[in-house]
């Protein structure tokens, strides 16, 4: 590689832009992170936690081409496991007493969150993945997410039901309550998010990741090359659950409270929106989408109480004329120049190559052969 193209590769490296974005977000949101407490830095924290959540979801959506409509279940699992571990609990299940005292080790909380989310994901994947794809896959993931949602909503004794749990302490570092400042917590979350996103980037660009792209493009061809497509889909599903779980872990500490909303359909849907807004076929897309979504939410919600409707409008416009999201637009501008990129926005051919269209199962899928055995 020449020096010039290496410099170009570095300049366009998604992790560099991820780092830049994370670094500027608290300033863009209008708060000085070095000034201690601040209203806006909390928005930035929300943005990056959801950026991580959406990026994990998008491993499945953008890279395998499968739309899970229930990824909030992994977010909420991570969040509740962390809350329960931190606050402790004492419940009767089938005559057994389950109890655990309050604890504060954030690494143990993270490991437990991951174990629960990954086990649940693995179980689901084994059931769902070989049996469904396309719209059925979306519906089944939604159904399973509802199971988790109602457990958190109804099991008052354990989860606090509708009210959830409050006054959850943030982790201490060597006994110091460093994270109680919003700004400090932001940089803690930023470090976690960035490192975790590096892992995700690594996975997407591994040989495993390239097989996911093959599966997204043409399952049948991938099979006939010798890839066990369902096994890859199961593994991708489980991996994509890990990132929302980490995000949920951060979320509990950030909010210092948790309620069933974390596992709601709304949250599951929000990450779909974020991925599409930012551009689901790119690494940076979901992170950018999460930032934009919350920027809109905060900006628009100050102007009108109908802010959700306005976000809906922005979303619809994007799906209709720019389905490859912001990153797709940036890509087009780089390739075709601004004028042509705008023209492309309104041309049919460019529009047909979208995620949403790709979602429909291809007609030539050998349904009978692969499913019946």
């Amino acid at each position, binding site marked *: 590689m020449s020096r010039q193209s290496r410099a170009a590769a570095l300049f366009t490296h998604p992790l560099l832009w991820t780092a830049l974005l994370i670094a500027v977000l608290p300033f863009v949101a209008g708060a000085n992170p070095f000034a201690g407490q601040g209203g806006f830095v909390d928005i930035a924290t929300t943005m990056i936690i959801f950026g991580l959540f959406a990026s994990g979801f998008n491993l499945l959506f953008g890279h395998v081409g499968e739309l899970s409509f229930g990824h909030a279940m992994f977010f909420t699992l991570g969040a509740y496991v962390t809350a329960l571990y931190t606050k402790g609990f004492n419940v009767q299940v089938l005559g057994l007493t389950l109890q655990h005292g309050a604890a504060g080790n954030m690494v143990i909380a993270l490991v437990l969150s991951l174990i629960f989310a990954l086990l649940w994901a693995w179980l689901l994947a084994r059931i769902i993945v070989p049996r469904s794809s396309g719209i059925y896959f979306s519906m089944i993931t939604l159904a399973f997410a509802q199971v988790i949602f109602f457990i958190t909503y109804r099991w008052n004794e354990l989860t606090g039901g509708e009210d959830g749990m409050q006054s959850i302490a943030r982790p201490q570092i060597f006994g110091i309550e460093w994270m109680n400042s919003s700004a400090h917590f932001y940089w803690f979350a930023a470090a976690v998010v960035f490192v975790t996103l590096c892992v995700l980037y*690594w*996975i997407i*660009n*591994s*040989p*495993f990741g*390239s*097989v996911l*792209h*093959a599966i997204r*493009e*043409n399952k*049948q*061809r*991938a*099979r*006939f*090359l*010798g*890839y*066990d*497509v369902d096994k*890859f889909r199961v*593994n991708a599903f489980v991996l994509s659950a890990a990132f929302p779980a980490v995000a949920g872990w951060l979320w509990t500490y950030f909010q210092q409270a948790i309620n069933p909303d974390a596992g709601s359909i709304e949250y599951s849907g929000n990450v779909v929106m974020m991925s599409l807004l930012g551009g689901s076929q790119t690494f940076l897309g979901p992170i950018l989408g999460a930032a934009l979504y919350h920027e809109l939410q905060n900006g628009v919600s100050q102007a009108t109480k109908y802010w959700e409707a306005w976000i809906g409008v922005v979303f619809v416009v994007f799906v209709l004329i720019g389905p490859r999201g912001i990153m797709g637009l940036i890509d087009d501008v780089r390739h075709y120049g601004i004028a042509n990129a705008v023209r492309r926005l309104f041309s049919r051919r460019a529009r047909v*190559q979208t995620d949403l269209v790709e979602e429909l199962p291809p007609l*030539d899928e*050998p349904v*009978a*052969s*692969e499913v*019946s*055995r």
Partner: protein
Amino acid sequence: MAYIFKTEKLTRRFSGFTAVNAVSLEIPEGGVRTIIGPNGAGKTTFFNLLSGLLPPSEGRIWFREREITALLAYQRARLGIARSFQITNIFGRLTVYENVRLAVQAVHDGRANFFLPERRLGNLADKTDRVLRDVGLYEAREARAENLSHGDQRRLEIGLVIASDPPVLLLDEPLAGMSPAETHETVDLIQRIAPGRTILLVEHDIDVVMAISTTITVFQTGQVLATGTPQEIRANEAVQRAYLGELA
């Protein structure tokens, strides 16, 4: 003689219609084994049964002494049965290079590796480049597959088939829609890779068939009408009546 495929009463029905009807065949190892027959004779369906795209309605299939009737498509591919499709079947939105690299990677031990970056996977890149040169697409390696001409897409698919260095190739009308020059190159390529492998070929270009086939099997209405060398098939009266007469 050792066989590469053996079928026993292999049958495939589509809602009452029998596309492949109780075919019992032994296909010897090595050489170019061509299947011809009129449209709708069941040639593609026969390939679909051998390669695992479709389960048979009845009958059994062996691959080198091993029964494969119940194996899935990817498992058969891993045994070294590679196929191309009558209707071009490639990764349209990936580049030519990525297409071939995925085919090479499929038989690499690190194919599902999570952590090594792609370029660290042994000789993947070298092998990919070699295959690209073999099929004459090295110059086009950065292009998206869907933007290639029809003939180049057909060649790319042959590249996907030969990339894993398989002992058995099932080629379903690889020359369909190719220009005379492309046909010539592709026939050359098939002959070049043939030694040491078994090639099952479905092809309508009767001149090519006669020129490169070791044996020819004639299908008609889902059944085998005759099998023999090109000379034998040319001389076979039943075949002439059913099929060749109009073409010869």
